[in-house]
């Protein structure tokens, strides 16, 4: 077996090791490269900036712990921004296994920003049915969520004053890791109830949402950890996402090198065999 052949059939656990190290080392010894802001992320940021105080901002945390590393930083950055702008923040989730995480997330950021439950923000919890929940909220928010996460009646929450349905929401962002996610919020929500919609998603979902972005169906898109890092830079509070960008750089470079190497071996093998 020639070198090329052996290298092409390399035990994939060696690759696993390389990737593991490329992630770990920059996390332990960060460099801090500058991050450029894209227009997609700016779309969401600018819209929140333009909202008057006390507008209702609905954040749907449509992911579960599996996508936590990518979307959690996005959620934190968005919540910090919304609280800083003194918006009325309403949060919820369409993913059952994300409920506990969403609760923790909202409570933590609200505490940090000194906000009070019920008057400044609320967490409605989870409700089953996916698209049915969205339509039902568009029709009557209190029918979809008769009580919030802690069991309090949603009708008694001051933060929801004047909010009857999705039509009364100033801005809505869905942070989606799949279905139901941003697309469903458009099709079953914005299409009929006409609220402003922005999106955040995992890197996998992002390329598929570009047609919606182009056509203005969503007015901004935060894509993956990079998007979160851009948002963190925009609000000037660097967090986990910015910290992760170095590791991201290293692993990407490693993979690109792997791909180049693999092609070199491949072509040399082809040449050997004529």
């Amino acid at each position, binding site marked *: 077996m020639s070198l090329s052949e052996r290298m092409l059939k390399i035990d994939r656990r060696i690759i696993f090791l390389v990737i*593991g190290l490329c992630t770990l080392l920059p996390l332990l010894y960060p460099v801090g490269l500058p991050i450029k802001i894209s227009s997609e992320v700016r779309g969401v940021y600018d819209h929140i900036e333009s909202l008057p105080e006390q507008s209702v901002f609905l954040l749907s945390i449509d992911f579960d712990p599996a996508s936590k*590393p*990518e979307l959690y930083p996005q959620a934190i950055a968005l919540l910090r921004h919304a609280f800083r702008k003194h918006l009325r923040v309403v949060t919820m989730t369409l993913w059952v296994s994300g409920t506990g995480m969403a609760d923790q997330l909202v409570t933590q950021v609200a505490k940090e920003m000194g906000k009070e439950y019920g008057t400044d923000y609320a967490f409605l919890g989870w409700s089953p049915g996916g698209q049915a929940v969205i339509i039902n909220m568009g029709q009557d928010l209190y029918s979809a969520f*008769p009580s919030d996460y802690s069991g309090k009646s949603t009708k008694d929450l001051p933060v929801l004053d004047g909010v009857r349905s999705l039509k009364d929401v100033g801005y809505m962002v869905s942070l989606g890791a799949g279905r139901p996610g941003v697309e469903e919020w458009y099709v079953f929500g914005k299409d*009929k109830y006409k609220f402003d919609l922005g999106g955040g998603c995992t890197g*996998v979902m992002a390329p*598929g949402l570009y047609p919606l972005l182009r*056509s203005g169906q969503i007015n901004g898109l935060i894509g993956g950890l990079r998007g979160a890092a851009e948002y963190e830079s925009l609000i000037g509070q660097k967090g986990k996402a910015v910290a992760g960008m170095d*590791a*991201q750089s290293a692993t990407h470079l490693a993979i690109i090198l792997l791909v180049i190497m693999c092609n070199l071996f491949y072509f040399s093998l082809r040449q050997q065999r004529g």
Partner: protein
Amino acid sequence: MTELPFESIVGAWVATGLTLLIFSFLYKDNPLFKLAEHLYVGVSVGYVIVKTYDTVIVHLVVKPIVENGEFALLIPVAIGMLMLTRYVPKAAWMSRYAFAFIVGMGAGLAIPRTVSSFILKQVEDTIRPLLSVTGPDSLTFSMNLLNPASHLNAIIILLGVSSVLFYFFFSIEHSGAGKAVARTGILFLMISFGAGFGYTVMARMSLLIGRLTDLIEFSDASYGRPTVWLSLLTIGALFLLARRGRAQPPDAH
């Protein structure tokens, strides 16, 4: 430095241990991984049951009925019950009513919304003038690739949309000029898949970054360094399992 609460320390040990058990799958499928896997299935099913019970039964059904007398909610409960007849062979056909309701409603809700969101909206945005008038009698064609709204990009988008749509024509043979168009379609598809792959690499790496950040945090002395000890323990266990595995005939499960 503040003392960590006891449950956080135990939690850190448990979380670290489970993380490492799952990661041991990277070496190969092994009993440690299987243990974590089954525990995971169990815990997550349990979690979903509790959440469904709490949200559906307690908050969406019982409370509204008891507090507001919304007895109409018994209808969906009945429909839901019908679904469970699937487990009674003789009455299993009754579950069809429930499925008929769900599927029929889903189909009905989908038609107009899909037409509006994904056909009209997308066609509307693809139709853009290929020239624009800037001053008196001067037509411009903007060539700037970096401006997504430029005329050149409008043409490229038109090219992409039509060739890919053409590739998905199934009732005509792709020959002659059609073959060239279909091939262009494939090239566009491949570019898009490549972009998707590249973007996703980022996504997946962030997941690893997330887990490693936790492991780094839990290697702190305040937790009693569970990462360090448990890593050693896991590697040791894998080593022992591998040795035991070698002593047995290779077929044994």
